[in-house]
């Protein structure tokens, strides 16, 4: 046994990544915290100064902030919920053996690799009130008689953008869950068949428990991505009409565009805290589940 010497190599190897992350993530986050305590408006540079908790107090009294927070919650719960359900369905359907399965799998992935801007704009064109194909389809089917300006009226705009984000997220869930499904040993199902389990029992007693970790990680990732997503909504409605599609991320982005960086930072920090509130218990559960399975 030789004496353990200090080995600098691992530290040198992680240094480049660490330094970059410090420069582009931790330092900016620190900056954001500082900015949130200032009246930091680039349109009024002479008035930049510390104002304590004024921005936070303003947010608490900003009805648009609360509305955006509520919209974010709906956006995430409904959006990710349906992505998960349809994604799971697609994964199960793709897990069967049929001719052309490889090709079908690949092409059902395309929405996932499509830029958010393009997704927003494609669906904006589909939802269009004058030339939109959705109106045309619904009218041909006799479901509606007059064209609906989906994205231009408050009652339909938010459901429309949610439908779009659901569409975007289905392939990701399908792909990840499909990989998980293929890792479940066939013998488990054979044994269940011998015991006379029906399809529902097989699904809830074998499939779901086997995929527990995959489900945990994929839903958490999606929750974070969807909560932070700006591009889809911004390119469909910019948060309108009358702020009816303005989630917190979009609100921050809009405020940032008006160069009121102090207030925008404040709301971004509140968004991060809200996300942490969801993510931390979630991660704790995941770690606990893993400890148990060891």
């Amino acid at each position, binding site marked *: 046994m030789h004496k353990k010497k200090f080995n600098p190599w691992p530290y040198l190897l992680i240094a480049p*990544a660490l330094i970059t992350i410090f420069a582009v993530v931790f330092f900016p986050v620190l900056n954001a915290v500082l900015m949130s305590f200032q009246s930091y408006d680039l349109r009024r540079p002479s008035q930049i100064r510390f104002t304590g908790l004024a921005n936070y107090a303003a947010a608490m009294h900003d009805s648009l902030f609360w509305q955006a927070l509520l919209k974010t919650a709906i956006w995430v719960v409904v959006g990710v919920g349906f992505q998960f359900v349809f994604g799971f369905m697609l994964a199960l359907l793709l897990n069967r053996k049929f001719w052309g399965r490889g090709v079908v799998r690949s092409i059902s992935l395309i929405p996932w690799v499509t830029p958010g801007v393009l997704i927003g*704009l494609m669906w904006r064109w589909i939802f269009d009130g004058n030339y939109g194909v959705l109106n045309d389809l619904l009218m041909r089917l006799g479901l509606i008689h007059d064209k609906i300006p989906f994205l231009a009226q408050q009652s339909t705009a938010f459901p429309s953008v949610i439908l779009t984000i659901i569409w975007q997220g289905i392939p990701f869930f399908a792909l990840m869950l499909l990989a998980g499904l293929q890792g479940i040993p066939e013998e488990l199902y054979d044994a269940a068949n011998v015991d006379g389990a029906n399809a529902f029992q097989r699904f809830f007693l074998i499939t779901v428990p086997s995929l527990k970790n995959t489900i945990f990680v994929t839903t958490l990732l999606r929750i974070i991505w969807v909560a932070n997503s700006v591009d889809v909504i911004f390119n469909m409605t910019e948060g309108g009409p009358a702020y009816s599609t303005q989630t917190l991320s979009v609100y921050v982005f809009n405020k940032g565009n008006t160069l009121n960086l102090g207030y925008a930072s404040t709301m971004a920090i509140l968004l991060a805290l809200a996300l942490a509130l969801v993510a931390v218990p979630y991660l704790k559960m995941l770690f606990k589940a893993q400890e148990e399975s060891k």
Partner: protein
Amino acid sequence: MTNRQRSHKRRFPRTARFLRALPGHILLAAMLIFLLFPFYWTFVTSIKPQRELYGSTVTYWPSKPTFESYSKLFSEYNFIKPMLNSLLVASVTTVVSLTVSLLAAYAFSRYRFKGRKFFMTMFLTNNMFPTVLLLIPLFAIMRRVGILYTPSALILSYTTFTIPFSVWLLNGYLDDLPMSLEEAAMVDGANRAQAFLKIILPMLIPCVVATGAYVFMTAWNEYTFAVMFTNESNRTIPVALKNFIGQLGVEWGMLTAGGIITIIPVCIMFFFAQKRLVEGLTAGAVKG
């Protein structure tokens, strides 16, 4: 063939099996139509003549298909410029992210050192910072440093999410390669670096390529940073697409043609990389 499949075959002749699978096939077809129709519609829009685009009736296939929008895209709108800008930004982001992430992932996977767990958690939680939280201070910082409206601003801001994600993925792949491989080489007199370059790296190449494809795609597709950190001369494709929405309305022909051109390269990359990528992502899911 497993026993289960064999007994399956005996009990259900061909047609009966097909009928049994039919509801599933119909459901799958319905989902595929939902997932793919927007792309069909985008393509059809891109080859419609201007008059048909804004006509009184909606047509599902143009009476006179034309590639006018595509040629106009490159002649009048100089779409090649944002394409080159995107290519530059995405390529440099990929190379930079892969290099620094590979080093870090190797350290996490092959060394046990003080603070290892702390640093790993740090990279993991990094994924959780909202884009908009970084966007605003980065905008102010880049402005101060004087690199706002240059490709470097975009490349640096993209590393905020590509590095943590790549470290996570590559670490998962590396953990799957047994240490004994390098140890054997080192017994034969190779040093650590040689063992890595000669033994590990060749085996890791498909995984590095898959990770690179993911990084490239996210950089190629990114909009939120791009719209704030670029100007006329260095704007990337997503920003250029958005710019077809003008004061006087939207030029849907141009926009959809540009959209089709944008997704072709990433689709091709992904068909090749998807298998490894999913393996890496799910390996991470199992290990946490």
